[in-house]
C-alpha cells in the first residue's frame, strides 16, 4: 500500500479537525478527498506530509512511518500546499531549478516526467512566478512538486481558484501522471472533479462518510432523485421545504434537486402542488444522482 492511515485523530484545542480516520491508497491510484472547506482535508495532508503530528493513530506513506521515518518520507513525496507556495520573486525556471537542486537532482534528469506540463509554461520561463496567472502558477507548482520523481504526490486543493479550462487540463495531467506509477492523493471541494478519481473518500467535519469508486458511490444512492424548476426559484425552494413528502431539496445548478420521502411519490403530485402555489413553467423530471447528491444525503444522515 502506498498510503495507510489507522484511526488518525487530530484536534486543535478542543475542535476535532480529524476524527478517527482510516483508509488505504493503493500504489498508482488517484485517490480523492472530497469535502467542503473545514472538513479536515488540509490537516490530513499535513499529517501525511510529516508537517503535523497526529494525536492518535498511526500512518505510513510509501512504507515509511510518518513519525519515526519522517526524513525518508520527505525524500520521497511531492507536496503542493493549498496556497501557492513558490518564490514569487524567482522566475519560473529559477523556481524549478531550485526545487530540483534541493532534492539532489536536475531538471534534465526528470524532464520526461514534467514535460507535458512544463512545455505549457516554458514560453514564460523568464517571468517571475508572482506574475503568472492562476492556472500557470498551478502548473509550475505541480512541476516543482514532481521534479524529483516522487513516489507519492500530495495535492491539496490544486484547482481552487483556477478557471474551468485550466482545471480540466490539470486533471488530464494527473491522469497521465498516474500512468507513470505515481500514487496521487488529491483533495478538492469540487464534486464534479470527484468523478475523475479512481476512488474517493467523502469527508466532512473530520469524519469520513464513505469510501468507494465514484461509480459505486453514485450507485449506492438509495432514493429516487428529481430535478425541479420553476419561474421563481427562491419561492420554489421555500415551498418544496414545506411539502409534506420532501426528504431533501437543495439547489443544483439551474435546478433544485428533490428527493421524496415515500416510495410511492409521483411527479404529477408535486406539479399539482406547485401549480396550486402559483408557480409557472414548472418542470419535474427524474434524474441520476451525482456525487454531490450522495454527499448531501450522507452528511444529512450524519447530522
Amino acid at each position, binding site marked *: 500500500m502506498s498510503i495507510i492511515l489507522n484511526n488518525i485523530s487530530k484536534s486543535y484545542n478542543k475542535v476535532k479537525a480529524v476524527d478517527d480516520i482510516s483508509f488505504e491508497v493503493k500504489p498508482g491510484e488517484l485517490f480523492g478527498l472530497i469535502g467542503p472547506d473545514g472538513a479536515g482535508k488540509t490537516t490530513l495532508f*499535513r499529517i501525511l*506530509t*510529516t*508537517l*503535523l*503530528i497526529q494525536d492518535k493513530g498511526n500512518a505510513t506513506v510509501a512504507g515509511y512511518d510518518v513519525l519515526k521515518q*519522517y*526524513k525518508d518520507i*520527505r*525524500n520521497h*513525496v511531492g*507536496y503542493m*500546499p493549498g*496556497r*501557492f*507556495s*513558490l*518564490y*514569487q*520573486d*524567482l522566475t519560473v525556471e*529559477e523556481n524549478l*531549478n*531550485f*526545487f530540483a*537542486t*534541493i*532534492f*539532489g537532482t536536475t531538471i534534465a534528469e526528470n524532464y520526461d516526467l514534467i514535460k507535458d506540463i512544463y512545455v505549457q509554461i516554458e514560453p514564460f520561463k523568464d517571468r517571475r512566478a508572482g506574475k503568472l496567472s492562476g492556472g500557470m502558477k498551478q502548473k509550475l507548482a505541480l512541476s*516543482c512538486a514532481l521534479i524529483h520523481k516522487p513516489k507519492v504526490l500530495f495535492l491539496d486543493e490544486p484547482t481552487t481558484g483556477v478557471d474551468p479550462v485550466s482545471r480540466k487540463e490539470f486533471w488530464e495531467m494527473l491522469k497521465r501522471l498516474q500512468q507513470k506509477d505515481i500514487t496521487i492523493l488529491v483533495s478538492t471541494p469540487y464534486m464534479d472533479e470527484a468523478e475523475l478519481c479512481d476512488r474517493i473518500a467523502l469527508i466532512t467535519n473530520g469524519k469520513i462518510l464513505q469510501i468507494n469508486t465514484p461509480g459505486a458511490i453514485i450507485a449506492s444512492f438509495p432514493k429516487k432523485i428529481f430535478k425541479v424548476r420553476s419561474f421563481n426559484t427562491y419561492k420554489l425552494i421555500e415551498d418544496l421545504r414545506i411539502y409534506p413528502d420532501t426528504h431533501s431539496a437543495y439547489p443544483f445548478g439551474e435546478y433544485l434537486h428533490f428527493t421524496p420521502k415515500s416510495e410511492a411519490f409521483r411527479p404529477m403530485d408535486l406539479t399539482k402542488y406547485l401549480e396550486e402555489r402559483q408557480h409557472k413553467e414548472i418542470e419535474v423530471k427524474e434524474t441520476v444522482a451525482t456525487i454531490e447528491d450522495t454527499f448531501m444525503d450522507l452528511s444529512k444522515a450524519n447530522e
Partner: protein
Amino acid sequence: MNRFIGFIKKEFYHILRDRRSLFILFGMPIVQVMLFGFAITNEINNVDIAILDHSKDVNTKEIINKIATSKYFSIKGFISHEDEIEPTFRKGKIKAVLNFEKNFSKNLVTQKKATVQILTDATDPNTANTISNYIGSILQNYQQELNQGLKLPYQIIPKTRMVFNPELKSVYMFVPGVMTIILMLVSAMMTSISITKEKELGTMEILLVSPLNPFQVIVGKVVPYILLSIINAVVIILLSIFVFKMPVQGSLFLLGAESTLFIINALSLGILISTVAATQQAAMMTSLMGLMLPVILLSGFIFPISSMPLPLQMISNIIPAKWFIIIIKGIMLKGVGLAYVWKETLILIGMTIFFIGLSVKKYKIRLE
C-alpha cells in the same frame, strides 16, 4: 553540497531583487556613518564669534589674528560697548564674545597679567564648554610664544592632553558605535525577516517537506548575510579611514576577525528571533525593540556605562554590543592586540555558541 549552494543562490536572488532590503543593506550604513560623523558631533568648526576690544593694542590684535586664522572660529563682528553683548547673542548667530580689558598690553607688561573675558552662549552647554576650552588653549599658546624670549623663572603652564583623541574628535567615538549598530541591525533583523518571510509566504512548508535539514536551511540563510555584513564592515572602516581620517592603530586582521565574530553573533540572534516570531512584522519589531534599543542605550556607545545605575550596568553585561564596542575601540583607537581583548572575545564566542545552540533547539522541524 550542491543542495546547499542552490539554496544560497536562491537567497542571493531574494536579496538582490528586493530593492527595499538592498537599500537597508547598503544605503543605511553609509547614511548612518555620514550622519553620525558629520551632523551629530561634539566638535566645533567655524563658530561665529564677536570681539569687544577696549584697548586695541598690539597684543589684542595678535590674539584676534590668531583666533581668526584658526579653523575653529570665524570673527563675525566687532562691537564697541558692553551693552551690545546681549543683543548680539540674542540674534543667535554669535556663539561667543571675547572681551579684552582696557590697557591690555600695558597691564601685561607692568603687572605681568592681563584679562580677557570669554562669554559663550550656554544655551547649548556642551558647545559652550568646548568653545571656551578652544579659545583658552589659543590664549595659552599665545602666552607661551610671548614668554619664549623672556626668562621668567616661574611659569605655570596648565596643560591638558587628551589621550587617544587629542582633538576630542567625536567621530572617533561614533564610528565603533555606528559600526556595531549597523552590523547588529543588518545581520539580526535581515536574517530574522528573511526566515519569517518563508513562514509567512508558505514556502517554509515546502522546504520542510524536502530533504533539506534544519541546519542546512539555517546556515543557507545565514551565509549570504555573513558575506554582505562583512562587506558592510569593510565599507564602514574604509569610510572612517578615508573620509574621517580616523587612524586604525591596531591590526586590521584582528579587527576583521572580531567583526566577523560579532556578525555571526548577531546572525545567531536573528535566527533565534525568527524561531519565535511568526510574521515578518513581528520579527522586525522584536529586532528593533529587543536589539536596537539596548545596543544604542546600554552598550556604552552613547551613554558611558560607568555612570549608569548599578542594575543597568549589570544588564549591559548581557548585551553583546557592549563587548564588541570595547574590543573595536581598543583595536582602532588604542591599537591593542588580542592579549588585551581576549576576555571580551571569549564572552562573545560564548554568547554566539549559546544563541546558536538555542536556535537549533528551538527550530521547528514541523509546523507546530
